[in-house]
């Protein structure tokens, strides 16, 4: 079953064509990577899918229903979660509260004025922290943790809305090699457990070829290729614009 259908998506920033005629379909359980050099339009593409910007052309449908033009919060409530390239957490709140407030939002209790927050969803929050290996950091002020841990926390926050489709924008950007390895293992594990459909952008070739079962290549706002990792490796266009020597080494 197709989860996400993107049809002829285009984004024009007052004359600059950032995305041009992108069509793509994501099947349930697919782990789809978007490859592309800096400025290829990866983040703009994500922003169009999650409602941060409204595309100037085309339609995005999630599970058969159109989501183009909806606000980010409504798209999240439909079942699409997202993490960001740059850390996006609540730096002055504790790690526990970072997750707890997301639980509250997911359960539709954000507007309960007289319901004490402290006691809400403690179990669920602790389970989520355990899932991303942050149990010991529960009481730490989120902004004071290491970069890698903040990324883990962000993943936990995104998972609170119980998304079926998870969009990860450069999940390992800025991580040390060890953090990158741990983080990929964690993401792959969670995706497996929760049967998530993943759409992610990534710089690290190793990460892409480890996790993805399909890869699309974005260049100057256009989708130049889409296929299995083997097909992408073998694709001549892709080699010339992006992969360089990597495909040869790996093959």
């Amino acid at each position, binding site marked *: 079953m197709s989860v996400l259908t993107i049809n002829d998506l285009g984004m024009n920033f007052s004359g600059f064509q950032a995305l041009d005629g992108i069509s793509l379909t994501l099947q349930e359980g697919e782990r789809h990577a978007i490859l592309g050099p800096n400025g290829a339009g990866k983040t703009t593409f994500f922003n169009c899918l*999650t409602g941060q910007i409204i595309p100037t052309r085309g339609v995005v449908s999630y599970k058969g229903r159109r989501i183009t033009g909806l606000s980010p919060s409504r798209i999240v409530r439909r079942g699409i979660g997202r993490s*960001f390239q740059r850390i996006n957490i609540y730096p002055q*709140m504790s790690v526990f509260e970072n997750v707890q407030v997301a639980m509250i939002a*997911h359960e539709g209790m*954000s507007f309960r004025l007289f319901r004490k927050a402290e006691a809400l969803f403690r179990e669920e929050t602790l389970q989520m922290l355990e899932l991303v290996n942050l149990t010991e950091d529960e009481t730490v002020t989120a902004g004071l943790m290491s970069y890698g841990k903040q990324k883990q926390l962000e993943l936990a926050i995104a998972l609170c809305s119980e998304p079926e489709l998870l969009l990860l924008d450069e999940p390992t950007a800025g991580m040390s090699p060890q953090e990158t390895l741990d983080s990929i293992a964690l993401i792959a594990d969670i995706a497996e457990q929760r049967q998530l459909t993943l759409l992610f952008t990534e710089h690290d070739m190793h990460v892409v070829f480890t996790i993805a079962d399909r890869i699309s290549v974005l260049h100057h706002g256009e989708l130049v290729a889409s296929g299995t990792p083997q097909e992408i490796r073998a694709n001549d266009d892709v080699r010339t614009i992006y992969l360089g020597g990597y495909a040869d080494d790996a093959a």
Partner: protein
Amino acid sequence: MNKSITGTALLVLLLALVPLAGSRYLIYLVTEIQIFALFALSFNLLLGYGGLISFGHAAWFSIGAYASAILLTTLGWPFLLAFPAAVAVTALAAALIGYFCVKLTEIYFSMLTLAFGQLVWAIAFKWVSVTGGDTGFIGVAVPEFLDSPVRFFYFSLCVVLLCATVLWVIVRSAYGMTLVATRENRNRAEFIGVNVRRVQLVAFTLAGTFAGVAGALFTVFNHSVFVETAWWSTSAEVMIMSILGGVGSFVGPVIGAAVLIFLDRTVTEYTQYWPSVMGVILLAVLFFMPTGIAGFLNRRRGGTRR
């Protein structure tokens, strides 16, 4: 936690004993502090918890003040009806204007609150037949049971304590935590499914409503309303109270209101240069106690900032 309950109980007891000291000056001073403490608490829901910088908070204080004056005197409503009605009018006005303000963010939000605030002042200033304009609304029909400094002192103490308790419950609530999340990271809050604008609108309306309560109390306290109350400097004053006391703590604005009003009354007895003195105090606080008096005290006790 237990410490803060004991502390609050002690403070309330101390406040309740104030009229027994027999000084009329003291009763007036503490009543005024109570009213402005509530005003500052309402303001801090926006600034401290929501991260929303409003330059027009005087609007709600003065709408509450004028509405209660008009309802009590011009329309002759009984107090028990007029007081809540004045608050309801303020709540409606805050919701309506807030709807437009939260469409904008950051400095544009602030400028819009300033513009609306000055609009309220202009109406109060120009609509002489209703508000008394420049001369103010003089001779408010204050009910007999509040027409004594001591009785009004206790009345305002009860109202302020009740409102402060409600505000305390709200900032600890699921909503309160969500509001802090929108301050901390608006973008992330959107992406956990929170309608940030609506959260901010609720905060704006609540803050306006409680400021309206303070304004209505101020009318009964003064038996009149003056148009200067609606001027932007009142908005600046409540901001200074909050920052002076500490926006990062719930009680900070109360401390700020108490310190500022006490100093205002005391310093003006010796010099006419109170604004300069206030400027120096504010500078000192910003440089040496950036988290305000409450934050400073809290750190000395080894506490942390929420």
